[in-house]
């Protein structure tokens, strides 16, 4: 049971959340008209063994999207912050 420390709601079980996607890929700007940046954003992944930045949605809580650091080998949890406050 992954336990996520939601900055709004506190430590909660993963069952309240929905896993979103890789947060290390950046959505191109709306006016980006070349295909490659969109292909990279939508399809291609680093898929790291180890630390991974990823989006989780607190769908059964405060409905905030979070950026969570999590280790894909050990399931260790790192920092968790609101996506809207995430600098990267």
């Amino acid at each position: 049971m992954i336990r996520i420390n939601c900055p709004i709601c506190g430590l909660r079980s993963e069952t309240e959340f929905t896993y979103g996607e890789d947060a290390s890929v950046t959505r191109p700007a709306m006016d980006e008209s070349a295909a490659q940046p969109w292909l990279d954003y939508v399809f291609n992944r680093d898929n790291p063994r180890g630390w991974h930045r990823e989006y989780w949605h607190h769908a059964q809580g405060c409905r905030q999207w979070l950026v969570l650091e999590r280790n894909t080998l050990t399931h260790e949890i790192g920092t968790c912050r609101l996506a809207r406050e995430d600098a990267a």
Partner: protein
Amino acid sequence: MVEVRSPLRERITPGQFGAPGDAGVVLGNRTLAGLWQIAGWSDFDEAADPVLQALGLTALGSYRQAQQAAGVRAWRTAPDRMLFETPQDLTPFNSAALAVLDLGHARTCITLSGPIARDVLAQVIAVDTAPDVLKPGMFLQTGLHSVAVLVHCTGPDAFEILVPVTWAESVWDILFENALPYGIAVREAA
């Protein structure tokens, strides 16, 4: 005024159910006096202020502690969102800086109380319900049978659960089912 019909009207039969003896749990249903969401952006503090003042509140509050004023309950549900139970019409506060939304028909309130209420709650939500953790006046947003609800601890053994009306029967059934071994008194809807 046309009466607001509870989504649990067909579900609730007052009486005594489950294990015999004194009821460990009292279940009931209350129609909200009115429910409003306000939402803003980076200047939410400022934008929300007139609403808070009108309702007799002073601050946005924390994400854990509910606020009370005369006839008003307030919950800070997100950095830029609050929810109020109030009979007052907040539409006039709607502006470019503050989005006001009427959710008065969107939720119904299931009341859960009694000496075993905390145990029943521990069976249906994945959050610690111990008395030293979930104290009177505190609230939380969580999933109950996969339904997003707001649980407000209103007393040492008393809780109010705000449930989306279309899911209300399922949530009621699950609470009822989980309370059976303790004996349930079901109250007339208020």
